[in-house]
Structures are given as C-alpha cells and as structure tokens.
C-alpha cells in the first residue's frame, strides 16, 4: 500500500478551502445583486441542490488530490530518494547502479550520478592497485634491509634525534644482552627495544657531543661526516661507536637536515684489555730496558778506566751481572705473557682546530662566572683528537682555575709547535693566589667538572693522544698557561666535499619513514594514546594481600610502541619469593615451588623490570593490585615506579558502562581475543595488551584521545573507588 503523504493532504485541504471561499464569495456577490424575487428563486433552485454542489466539490478535490500526489511523486519524492541513495553510496562501500525515476531531469541526474560512481570506483581500484604495489615494494625493501642487517657482523642501531631506537639488528640485540646486568633470560630487553632511549647505555652528553660535531660538519658542507667515540657502559664494558647521520631528503638548495643517526657498535672490552696489557708490557720493556742498558753502558765505560780500585771494579761487575739478569727475566716475562697481535688504539678523529677551540669556549662558558675567548688561533690546523675527553679536560682545568686560583677570564690559543699542535689554556694569574703552588697534582687527579665525576685524569687524556701536557709561564707579560701537545691531521674537508654528489650514495632502504615520532616532544599528559609507548604487565603472586606478606612469583610484560604490540620484546621472569606458595593458588597460576627455586629474587628482578619500563606508561588489568605489589617493594629495592599508570579494567568501564563484567575474560570474549597461556603472567600481559589496543579507538570515539583525558575518564568510573 502506498504511504499516506501529508503534503498531498495539506495541498488538497488548502485547495478545498480556497474553492469554498471562492464559491461563498461568488454566491454572496450574486446574492447582493438580486431583488427579493430573484433571491427566492435562487434559494429554491440551489437550496435543494446544495448536496450536488458539495458532492461535485468533493469529487473535484479528489481529482486535485490525485494530481497532486502524482506531481509530488514525480517532482519531489524521486529527487529525495536519489539523494538518500546517493548518501548511502557516499558513506559506504556499497557498489551498485541507481535506478532512474521521476522527471526527465531527475533521470538525467541519476544517469550522471551513476557515471560519477563508476568513475569513483575506477579511481578507487587504481588507487588500491598502486597502494598494493607500493606496499609490496616497501615490504621488499624491508626484507632487503632485514637480510642486510642480519648479515652484518656489526651491531647497528638507528635512532631519531631524541635518541629513541627506531631500528636495530640481531647482532645489536645480542650485544646488549651481554651488556645487561639483569639476571637470566630477560637480560638485554630492558636496554634495547623499539622506542627505547639509547641513553640507557650511552652517556647522553657523549652522544650529544658527537651529534654536534656531525652537525657542524654538515653545515660546513661535508658530504659524509661521521664521528666515533669510545664509551664505558654502566656494566663496565668498553664500546666503540661510530656515528653517521641520517638525513631528510634535500629540498631545493636547503642543506639536508639531520633527522637521526646510525650507531655501529663494537664491544672492544677484551681487545682493549689485551691492548692495554700489551702497551704496558712494551712500555715497561722499553723504559726499563733503556734504564738497564744505561746502567750497563755506564758501568762498562767506567770499567775501561785502568786505575780502577779493585773494590769499585767488583761493584761494577755486580751491576753488570744484576742488569743482565734483569733483562733476561723481563724477556722471559714478555714471552710468557702471550701478547696477541691485535692492534687497537683509542680512536682519534680529525677535527678542525678552530672547531675544537670554539667547542671548548662554549663548554667553559657554561661554568658560572667564567668567560673564555679565542686568541691567536691558527685556523688552518687540523688535529687528530678524541674531542670529548679533551674538552672534559679543558673544562676541568678551567673550573679548578676558577675555584682555586680565582680566575674569571681564560684564553685559548692554538698554534703549531715542533711537528705538533700546541693548544694552550692561558690566563693572567691573580695577585691573591700563587698559581704555581696549587697546580702540581692536577695532572694526576681524577677530573671533575660541572658536577660530573670521571675516573680519567689529564695524564690519561694526554696518553690517549700520545701527547704531552705541562704548566708554563711566558717570560713577557706574565701570562701563564697549560699546554697540550696534540697530534696533527692532514687537512681533509676538501676531499669530503669535492666530487661527491649529494644523496647519490643514499641506499634505497632509507625510504622508511622512521623519523616522525613526535610524542616525545609533547608532555605525556597531552600525548595521544596512539603515539605513546606502553609497558603492559602482569604479576603472579602467592596471594592477594601484598601488604601482608604475599610475594611476586612471576612478572611479565610486553611493550606497545606507536600503536604496535612488540611481541618479541617481552619480559618474562620467575621470581623466588623466599616463602611457600600456598597450594590452593597453584591451580590458578600453575607455578609450583620447583619452578621458582633457584630463580633470581625480587631485588634482582625489579631493577631490570624498572629499566624495562623506563619512559613508558604502565598498563595492567586491575592495575591497582599490580602496582601495590611493586610499591611494597620500594623500600627493599629503592626503586620507585612513578610512571603514569593505565588500567584496562577502568578503561573498559569507560567504553562499555552498561556491561556487567569487566574481568579480563569477559573483555577478551567481547573483543573476540584468544588468549594462549591464560593465567601465566606473559599470557595475561599479552591479552591485556590486545585489549588495550582495541580500547584506544573506542576511547577515541568517545572523544578521549590523550593520556590525560583517558586517566581523567578512568578516575570517574565506579571501579576507581576500589583500593588494595
């Protein structure tokens, strides 16, 4: 049955009323022109036939209604239907042709619309093909890079300018595992991982210094600048790192901007120890043999005197015997020390002397009330230096001069000496303090500057450069100075810039757009959930009352970085609770006393876990309980987990307020997530992570995008009132 159309009814009603008014008005006019007789005749004629008149009025209205209905369907309903159908096509992926109806104009419009839909489909298909092709190429590039990286014998780590790791190879993972101080299988995962900070392993200032060096050279137009440094890790290992810049594509004549860096790492602890031993043996051999030879030579020279007393003669022979014996012993020692042939030197990099002076001035001027200027700097000199430790040395000397000799102005001088460069730190001695009395000993004291302690001494720094260092005074003017003799390098920047076509050597796999992470630059609270790094974790315990003696027996975690669950970067460790595991809890978590026996205790596991969670937001299901378990250990371990915390239980309540249950099982069922290993800590952490990833877009639908908004919404839910 056709639908009743109000518009038609209103139309008919209006026309009916108009007709009645017209009839009434016309009748009234005729009535007024008639005399009494005429009116009687009219009344008699029409009065009895008024029903006929009204009947015709009704029939006419019906005809008008039918016509109106046809007109509305033809001119109004057809376009409206077309609009609705077009809206469906616009808003969904439905592919169909629209059936023309209504007026000629409407049919033409439908035809045109159908053509537009066809055109859109064709474009969509073409775009899909192109996207698929590009994705295929990217995948191929990724595979190529993965193959290349895995075959490299060097550890490679790629970071953005914030020091966040964006890419690393298997070799790097193995190496970081060796560097880790964490117990057992978890070792290394707390140090290396996508989105983690490389400063967990490297001194931030050291990396910043190397970056600054590279930036300077890039600005100078160097085509392939790189920097290298050696650093000791917190676990006492010695790493040699070579740093190369990753640059953004060049736009016009603008110089390419640095967007990150590649670190190639070698653990040189063993080689370095061997080298240090070898150096020490050779050093001792050379110097002691020289001394012994001198003793023998002098004794022999004296023995040639004919008038020698017998007593003196005997003493000199004894000297000869002792020195010969000593030499023999030393030679035997060298042979037995089995020095290998590895040659390893502290890496010295080529640096323009003027750059070093400028860097030193910048560094010295960070010390309060101390200024430094360059004076007589030969800007043609290229040095071979380990600039980080050298700058540390200059800054240390400057700070000591300020503190102990009341010096406020320093000058840096760089010139050519006898085959070496002379770098002088000069000052005018203060009248109040006799500089010469306090300075001896500075060379061998551990350097301390800007609140940083180092075990290095000036002597070590000088040793690295094969140079010399002393304190001197100019005969004229009274200026005093510390002088470093430093090795020279051949000028080489021309070689770097000339003949290298920029960007030509960029390998294809640089097409990865790995450098757009921006979450770090915003405050955490304002960061989007989709951009943050999360550690999703779960603990298994001996019971539900951590405050009264229940202990953690397993702790596991996975990470979410940039909206991706990193399954391979997991943390999973049993913990020896040093107490019994109640029998009734074993069926729940499946952990028997045998499984935790001999495992590391919580004071060993928590530091590694703490580092694993660094710079991330913690996520757990019913987080209040897990956090309580960590908090009761704060006193024992001294570790405070002050990361922001998110609870999937509360977030589920935010998203689905009408659901009865927000237990992990219920949520995973709602989201159709299969959990393997449910009630193992890692299984639950994985499930929680999957749940969390599905909650993020649902929260976004409710206008909750940032961490701050999510925490606020979670706080308002009923479940937030529960306390452990």
């Amino acid at each position, binding site marked *: 049955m056709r639908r009743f159309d109000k518009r038609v009814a209103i139309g008919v009603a209006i026309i009916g009323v108009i007709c009645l008014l017209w009839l009434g008005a016309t009748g009234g006019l005729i009535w007024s022109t008639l005399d009494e007789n005429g009116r009687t005749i009219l009344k008699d004629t029409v009065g009895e036939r008024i029903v006929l008149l009204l009947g015709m009025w009704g029939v006419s209205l019906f005809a008008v209604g039918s016509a109106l209905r046809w007109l509305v369907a033809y001119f109004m309903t057809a376009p409206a239907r077309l609009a609705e159908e077009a809206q469906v096509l616009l808003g969904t992926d439905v592919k169909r042709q629209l059936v023309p109806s209504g007026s000629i104009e409407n049919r033409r419009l439908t035809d045109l619309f159908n053509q537009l839909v066809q055109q859109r489909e064709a474009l969509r298909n073409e775009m899909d093909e192109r996207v698929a092709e590009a994705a295929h190429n990217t995948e191929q590039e990724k595979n190529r890079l993965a193959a290349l990286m895995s075959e490299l014998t060097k550890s490679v780590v790629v970071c953005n300018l914030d020091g966040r790791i964006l890419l690393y190879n298997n070799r790097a993972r193995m190496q970081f595992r060796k560097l880790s101080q964490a117990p057992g299988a978890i070792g290394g995962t707390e140090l290396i991982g996508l989105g983690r900070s490389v400063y967990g392993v490297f001194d931030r200032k050291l990396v910043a210094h190397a970056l600054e060096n590279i930036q300077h050279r890039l600005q100078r137009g160097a085509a392939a600048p790189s920097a290298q440094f050696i650093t000791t890790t917190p676990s006492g290992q010695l790493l040699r790192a070579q740093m190369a810049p990753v640059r953004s594509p060049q736009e016009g004549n603008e110089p390419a901007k640095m967007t990150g860096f590649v670190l190639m790492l070698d653990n040189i602890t063993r080689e370095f120890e061997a080298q240090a031993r070898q150096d020490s043996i050779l050093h001792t051999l*050379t*110097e*002691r043999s*020289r*001394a012994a*030879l*001198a*003793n*023998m*030579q*002098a*004794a022999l*020279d*004296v023995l040639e*005197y004919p008038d020698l007393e017998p007593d*003196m003669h005997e*003493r*000199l022979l004894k*000297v000869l015997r*002792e*020195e010969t014996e000593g030499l023999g012993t030393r030679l035997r020692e060298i042979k037995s020390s089995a020095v290998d042939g590895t040659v390893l030197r502290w890496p010295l990099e080529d640096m323009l002397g003027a750059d070093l002076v400028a860097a030193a001035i910048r560094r010295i001027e960070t010390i309060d009330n101390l200024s430094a200027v360059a004076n007589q700097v030969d800007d043609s000199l290229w040095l071979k230096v380990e600039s980080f430790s050298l700058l540390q040395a200059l800054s240390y000397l400057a700070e000591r001069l300020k503190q102990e000799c009341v010096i406020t102005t320093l000058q840096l001088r760089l010139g050519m*000496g*006898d*085959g*070496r460069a002379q770098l002088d730190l000069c000052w005018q001695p203060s009248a109040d303090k006799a500089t*010469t009395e306090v300075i*001896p000993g500075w060379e061998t004291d551990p350097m301390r500057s800007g609140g940083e302690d180092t075990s290095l001494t000036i002597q070590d720094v000088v040793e690295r450069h*094969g*140079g*010399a*260092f*002393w*304190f*001197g005074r100019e005969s004229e003017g009274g200026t005093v100075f510390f*002088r470093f*003799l430093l090795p020279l390098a051949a000028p080489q920047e021309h070689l770097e810039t000339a003949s290298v076509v920029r960007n030509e050597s960029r390998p294809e796999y640089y097409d990865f757009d790995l450098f757009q992470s921006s979450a770090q630059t915003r405050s955490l609270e304002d960061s989007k959930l989709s951009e943050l790094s999360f550690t999703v974790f779960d603990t298994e315990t001996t019971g539900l009352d951590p405050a009264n003696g229940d202990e953690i027996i397993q702790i596991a975690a996975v990470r979410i970085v940039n909206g991706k669950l990193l399954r391979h970067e997991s943390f999973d460790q049993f913990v020896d609770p040093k107490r019994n595991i109640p029998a009734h809890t074993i069926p729940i978590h499946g952990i028997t006393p045998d499984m935790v026996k001999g495992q590391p205790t919580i004071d060993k596991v928590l530091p590694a876990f703490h580092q694993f969670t660094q710079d991330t937001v913690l996520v757990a299901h019913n987080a209040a309980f897990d956090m309580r378990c960590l908090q009761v250990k704060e006193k024992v371990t001294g570790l405070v987990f002050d990361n922001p915390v998110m609870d999937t239980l509360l977030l589920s309540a935010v998203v689905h307020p009408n659901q009865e249950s927000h237990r992990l099982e219920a949520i995973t069922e709602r989201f159709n997530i299969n959990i393997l290993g449910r009630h193992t800590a890692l299984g639950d952490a994985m499930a929680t992570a999957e749940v969390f990833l599905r909650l993020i877009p649902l929260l976004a639908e409710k206008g909750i995008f940032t961490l701050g908004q999510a925490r606020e919404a979670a706080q308002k839910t009923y479940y937030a009132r529960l306390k452990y």
Partner: protein
Amino acid sequence: MTKTVLIADDEPNILISLEFLMKREGYRVLLAHDGQEACDLIMTERPDLLLLDVMMPKKTGFDVCHEVRAHVDFKNTPILLLTAKGRDTDVAKGLAMGANAYMIKPFSTKELVQKVREMLGAAA
C-alpha cells in the same frame, strides 16, 4: 772552586757509575734517590748542576725542574735530564719545564761528561 753536581735517580746501579765519573772530573757529588730528596739537597747544598732522572718516586724530574726554576736563586742552574722516556713529546715537555739539555738512556758517558763540562763552563 770545586763545582758541586747533584745526581738524582732511583736506580742505585747508575748512581755508582755516575758518581765515579763526576768525582773523577773533580766535582763534588751529591746523590739523591727520589725527587723530594733532590729538592731538599738543592735547597740546602745549592749544587752547580743537576743531573735528574725523570721517572722518580715522590717527585718526577719534571716536578723538580719546575720547582727549581720557580726559585729565584736557581733560575740559571744548569739542568740535564737523563731519562728512559724517549718520546719527542717528553723531550719537549722537559725542555719546556726548564731543563737545559735532555739525554735519553742509554747514553754515552763520554758525551755526558762532555755535556756536563760544557754546561758548567757556560754557567761559570
């Protein structure tokens, strides 16, 4: 007047020969077995020439040089460094610290004696 030569070295075996050679040249000889003893002897005995080893306990030959040159009475006292440290940077440092000459061990005693004669002659 008899000239006094101070010989400072922690190697007793070289002291025997050097003491003999210097005495044979007619000099009065003072012996020191470390840097501190050398400094003390210099201040009390005021020798005319110093023969200093570089690597000595308590104070190095460089330190002794530095201290001696800082003292107005010993600005012109000839100093000869005798050392097993043979790098050019060590030589440069020794000379910068105020030594007049630098001989690397092993050295010819004839050359040493000749050098001492020249230095004392020049200082006189």
